[in-house]
């Protein structure tokens, strides 16, 4: 536990929602350690609590039991120190702001200077390959470009942690491939730690150094698979034997955790 490279850790963490239909055990007994520079994917069927786990790390949900540490701090403290950037399922861009104004939003909130904002906008927009679109409004962009803007926005605090909740779920496969590649480059170049929620096995295997398989009702960690794939991953690595082996293990893991039960029944 005292490993200084541990960025995110959870200990016996449980989270129960009180609803009108009684308590819902979204997460139960989650123990997890994420080290600096890892790319961790959370995969599992809907209802397995993968999004809830990400939200708990981001202090958007409160665990009912156990604890979470982010950079050694409580999630709330981590949020206060702006330790992470968060990318939502939908781009959540503010429609009345242009691309650059959207990217500048977090900096306006921290009260960055004009010069800082300008430099930052230039840098992050270049990072997500959106030069020339600074003055466009969100509705003038495609879905993939919108999600890229929201990634640029999440990089605003130069946070080393990026939390991503099915960021490419709504995009078509070609755009998704492209963005996956860009994300890997970004991660490689900036030595970030990324937590990535997905329900796509190829996406999880392609991106991750660690794949966390979760099972539903109650949401639990079923298995953790460390990926031996090299850091540098061209798209066609997905046809390699190694890749297919890991994908197979992930699928087996999901099956073992009864993730396919409903469909088979």
């Amino acid at each position, binding site marked *: 536990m005292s490993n200084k490279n541990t960025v995110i850790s959870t200990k016996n963490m449980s989270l129960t929602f009180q609803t009108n239909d009684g308590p819902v055990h979204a997460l139960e007994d989650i123990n997890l350690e994420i080290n600096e520079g890892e790319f961790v994917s959370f995969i599992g069927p809907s209802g397995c609590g993968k999004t809830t786990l990400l*939200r708990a790390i*981001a*202090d*958007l949900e409160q665990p009912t039991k156990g604890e979470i540490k982010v950079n050694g701090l409580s999630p709330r403290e981590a*949020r*206060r120190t*702006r330790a*992470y*950037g*968060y990318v*939502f*399922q*939908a781009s*959540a861009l*503010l*429609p*009345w*702001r*242009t691309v650059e104004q959207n990217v500048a*939003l*977090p900096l*306006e*909130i*921290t009260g960055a200077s004009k010069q800082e904002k300008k430099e930052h906008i230039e840098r992050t927009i270049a990072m997500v390959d959106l030069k020339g679109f600074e003055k466009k*409004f*969100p*509705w003038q962009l495609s879905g993939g470009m919108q999600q890229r803007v929201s990634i640029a926005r999440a990089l605003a605090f130069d946070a080393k942690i990026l939390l991503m909740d099915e960021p490419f779920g709504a995009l078509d496969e070609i755009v998704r491939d492209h963005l996956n590649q860009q994300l890997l480059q970004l991660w490689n170049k900036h030595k970030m730690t990324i937590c990535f929620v997905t329900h796509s096995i190829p996406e999880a295997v392609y991106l991750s150094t660690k794949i966390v398989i979760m099972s539903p009702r109650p949401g639990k960690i079923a298995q953790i698979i460390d990926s031996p794939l090299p850091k540098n991953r061209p798209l066609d690595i997905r046809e390699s034997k190694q890749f297919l082996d890991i994908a197979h293990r992930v699928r087996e893991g999901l099956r073992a955790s009864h993730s396919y039960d409903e469909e088979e029944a």
Partner: protein
Amino acid sequence: MERVFQSKIFAILVVLLAILVIWYGAAIKLNTPWQLGVYERAEITQWTKKQFIKDTLNQKRPVLPSAHQVFSEMYKTTFLKPINSKRSLVYHSWITLSATLLGFAIGTCFGILIAIGITHNRALDRSLMPWVIASQTIPILAIAPMIIVVLNAVGLSGLLPKALISTYLSFFPIVVGMVKGFRSPRNIQIDLMRTYYASPLQTFFKLRWPSALPYLFTSMKVAIAIALVGAIVGELPTGAVAGLGARLLSGSYYGQTVQIWSALFMAAALAAILIMIVSLVEKHVTKNMGAKS
């Protein structure tokens, strides 16, 4: 030819023509008994149809004045009288308009403040909203004189009491619209602000306020029209001597139907112009906020 039928102007003209036909038809019918009485008293027994129709449409105090009577009265009282004259429609309109605008401005600010309270405080949400709704069930005609009397007792008179009656009506649509507007940001947008550790004030100005602006303009269009109604109604039971409401009242005392109708049309025209102004501001603002044109 087909293009002519589908054009906007054609549609407008058809509706306008239909209104005029109904209007003149009704005017002839409603003014006939009086006209027959006039002929009887003057012992005229022979008249042509044309003469009869012309007479029914040009009575001095008709049950229903005809369009040309109303519009010539409006023209006369708007352009041919000095603006500061008591007979000028512009003078009376201005009296009502100033109360409308003041009342609307106060009502809009007041409504926004209440909506902010309701959206940010659970207790206010539960306790305030029923009163806001209840306030609108009280007939304004009943409460208007009391507002005037009470405010007079505390030394307020003139424009403000009348404006406050406008406020009383116009704050309501603003509250309802803005509560919905302030609550319109989606959950992920609010979560986004949380991940930035944004203060409530920042969340309000960066997210809730811009999200609510479209609702504000919709509410303002309703509010400004009923602010005008409020100003006119406020003049009725309070014995006002000037303003469109006073014009309506004196018209009804002396059977000046033409005067009543021209005041009504003036009020309608004012409302239309006010709503148009709000729409123009809305267009300008939403254009700057990246609306698809």
